[in-house]
């Protein structure tokens, strides 16, 4: 599968956002592609459901598209996306917990237990060594590492998105790096 079109790499977020504001659908697609996996994984931390994570992420981009005239972004575009996905995920969580609250009140055979088996399957044939290593990290630590390394968010942005201190982000990053460097086969 081909994932990274060169254009994604060439355009900065700001350029893409300006194109989106000028109603350029292709720019929306590129931005979506750029952050899709990270945002879905991030949403999954909250929703614990693959389906709802995908819904939350697409909702955020739908909103970005429909309100492209009105949305004012004060931080970076990616920080905005992560924050919006978090909020939307929490909405889904609230909605579901509300709907599932009264599970016992209704007897119905019509409804299957849940939308899908909600487990984030870790691929057994991880594309490479590092990926399988990363999957061993605690979910939140792994997410913080990905947000910084792969999506280029600063510690401060990550801290704001997750409502934790910059210090905690730094500790989590160090712990992740320590783990990865220990697992790396050292050449003598």
């Amino acid at each position: 599968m081909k994932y990274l079109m060169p254009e994604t790499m060439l355009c900065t977020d700001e350029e893409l956002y300006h194109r989106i504001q000028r109603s350029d659908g292709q720019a929306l697609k590129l931005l979506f592609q750029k952050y899709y996996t990270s945002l879905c994984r991030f949403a999954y931390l909250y929703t614990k459901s693959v389906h709802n994570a995908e819904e939350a992420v697409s909702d955020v981009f739908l909103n970005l598209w429909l309100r492209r005239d009105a949305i004012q972004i004060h931080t970076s575009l990616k920080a905005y996306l992560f924050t919006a996905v978090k909020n939307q995920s929490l909405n889904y969580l609230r909605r579901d917990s509300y709907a599932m609250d009264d599970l016992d009140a209704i007897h119905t055979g019509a409804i299957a237990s849940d939308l899908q088996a909600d487990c984030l399957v870790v691929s057994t044939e991880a594309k490479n060594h590092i990926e399988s290593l990363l999957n061993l990290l605690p979910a939140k630590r792994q997410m913080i590492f990905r947000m910084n390394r792969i999506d280029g968010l600063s510690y401060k942005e990550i801290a704001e998105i997750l409502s934790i201190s910059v210090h905690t982000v730094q500790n989590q990053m160090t712990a992740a790096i320590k783990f990865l460097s220990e697992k790396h086969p050292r050449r003598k």
Partner: protein
Amino acid sequence: MTDEEFIQLATKFFSREASEDEIEQYHFYNKKKKYAALARHIQSQWDAAVKIKHDSVFPIDRGFQLLKEKIRIYQPSFEWDKPQVERLFDFSSKWLRISAASAFLVLFMASGLFYFWYRSHEIVWNEKKTVMGEQAVVSLPDGTRITLNADSKLTYPARFVGQSREVYLQGEAYFEVQHLSDKPFVIHTENVSTIDLGTRFDIKAYPAEKNITISLEQGSVKVLSKFNSAQQDIVLQPSQQMVYDKNCGKSLVGSFDSEKITGWKNNILIFEDEPIAEVLRSLERSYGVSFQIADTSVLHRSLRAHFHNESLATVVKSLEKATGLASKTIDDRSAHQTIIFFERKP
């Protein structure tokens, strides 16, 4: 400096969070033999990690599809590479925003007056009713198509006026709503109202049954409870179903099997472990007959059956098999057929 401290420094350095002093410090220790190897390991892991981009749990193609479908609810002709219609006004200008806002205010007041004027003109209501064993299709002037199941009633205005399009349903119907973002389509049933957000869905609300079921195939709908305003509105996503219990006023959201729910339009009836009492009620409606059963204990047993466009005779035969009862059909011409199930004499 311990290894631990060096890792902390390196982490800051690689994630571009190091201050100038720290960068200098890193380069200083990096030159020392003791740390050089460790620094190399960290760097190689750091470099390797950037390759991780996509995974099979969240395939990007599915993401594209989902987003496109959502946008198309609002912009039916949306394509990624199609130029969008340029907007006439640039609302980023402050003065334009203010003047637009005041224009809207005037428009809002005017439409309010217009609304009251219009309310004094009476709305003509149409009614479409189906009897047992009958189905009907209602096409509304806005392009919405409603397929009415047996023993159901739809009340709708001869033409839609006002801010919304509102209809009333008793029984079951399948809706293919022509979405108009400025004129929501609302279906009122006994206890809940369903607001279309661009959609195909099924509503089942028979007065005799204890549940109201709303099953969404495509698009999005919002469901409001009429009596319990404290209850949050529920927005259904495609292939989600909401079951509302009229007795306790509570609802549950889950998934559903599309063929089972909307199969009735094509005379497909699917029962998966349902109480025989409910199966019979559903068959009565679809075939326009009445069932009588001598031994009521059978009614609580559950039944699994698929009827694809079967004749009444075949259906009755399979019911005989499932219950172990014999049957007799009484056709008194004046009303519909009655089928009586009774115990087989040994």
